[in-house]
């Protein structure tokens, strides 16, 4: 785990290599996180993977997040791991909500980390985040013909109303 000064060093070097790629950093609970510009996320991941001294060669997880009602609403989090040093680094890209008609977009990192293929499909399946350049952008867990992005915070939970004693008066003649 890079400590807080180490994280600032990484951010500084990244900003020198790709201008304004890093928008912020935070270091909490011993975990380091870079908040990056979504347009340059591929450059950042590639730099972290290939630069001597960094070499975060393993993408241990990729997931989508919905921060509603915060702005920007969506986020994609990359958990990088350097196996020889056992160091983890989190990279977070925040994407604005394009409105009800559009889908948030982010460049796909399958070319850098092949393991991202299924995980990007999962993020697409549950949050509707489209990864441009992904070889096979389909749903992975929900049925193909499913409509909606079920893990978004404004998606209805689903299920059926259950009658308890506190709400049975609201459903008249429920016992029939």
């Amino acid at each position, binding site marked *: 785990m890079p400590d807080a000064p180490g994280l600032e060093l990484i951010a500084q070097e990244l900003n020198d290599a790709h201008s304004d790629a890093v928008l912020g950093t935070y270091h909490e609970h011993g975990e380091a996180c870079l908040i990056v510009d979504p347009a*340059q996320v591929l450059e950042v991941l590639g730099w972290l993977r290939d630069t001597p001294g960094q070499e975060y060669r393993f993408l241990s997880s990729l997931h989508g997040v919905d921060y509603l009602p915060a702005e920007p609403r969506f986020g994609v989090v990359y958990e990088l791991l350097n196996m020889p040093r056992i160091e983890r680094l989190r990279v977070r890209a925040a994407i604005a909500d394009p409105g009800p008609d559009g889908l948030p*977009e982010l460049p796909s990192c*399958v070319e850098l980390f092949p393991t991202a293929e299924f995980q990007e499909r999962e993020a697409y399946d549950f949050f509707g985040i489209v990864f*441009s350049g992904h070889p096979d952008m389909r749903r992975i867990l*929900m049925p193909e013909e499913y409509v909606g992005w079920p893990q978004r915070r404004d998606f209805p*939970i*689903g*299920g059926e109303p259950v009658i308890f004693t506190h709400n049975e008066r609201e459903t008249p003649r429920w016992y029939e």
Partner: protein
Amino acid sequence: MEVKREKVRALSPLDQPKTPEELRVRQMRARDLLRGDLDGDELEKHVTDSLLMTTLEKALDWGRANAVFPATFGLACCAIEMMSIVSPRYDIARFGAEAMRASPRQADLLILSGRVSIKMAPVVRRLYDQMLEPKWVIAMGACSSSAGMFANYAVVQGADKFMPVDLHVPGCPPRPEALLYGFNKLQRLIVGNPEPGWRKRYNAEGTEEWAREDVIVDQPSEASLATYGRARDVAKAAPVGEGS
């Protein structure tokens, strides 16, 4: 020959030979019958001793109820409890249902052991449709009966939304004893309700695919197609490696 119909006491101690001599007498009587030497009262006694009168339907239902072939089929965590009913501790072989069949074509009992997700529902329904009549279904546990704790977007709210269920076993998960008790109830159902087809049992005649007026075409909806088209267009627009 006059046949008196009375309540059958098959294999009850009253009908068993009480002494070795009596057994010997019966054996000799049977030998004489085979040789054709038996007639009169002796013949009548032999027939009333050794015949069991019933109807063919009753005999058939008795056989069906005591030779159920469950499908080897588990959906979720309830399947762990379901597996243990074959173990010597619970032993469903006592009720003649130990032969788990690996194909729905050979099975006549489907135990829905666990939650049915909306992606699994068509598969389960197809399995059920592939089973031959007569067939029965036990919904085991809260999830397959009513979705239990999974009141969400991914789980069917009760398996009887898409297929006929004969028996619900409550519990989360039910103990193997509970499932065995449910199975015994099902055996009584089979004996007491000999109607073999599920459509007749549940007044669903006329819902066969060939009997329906409306033609169901299995097509993705407009909304689904639109979403997919958009996602594919975006994904194709930017080739891999060029960034955005």
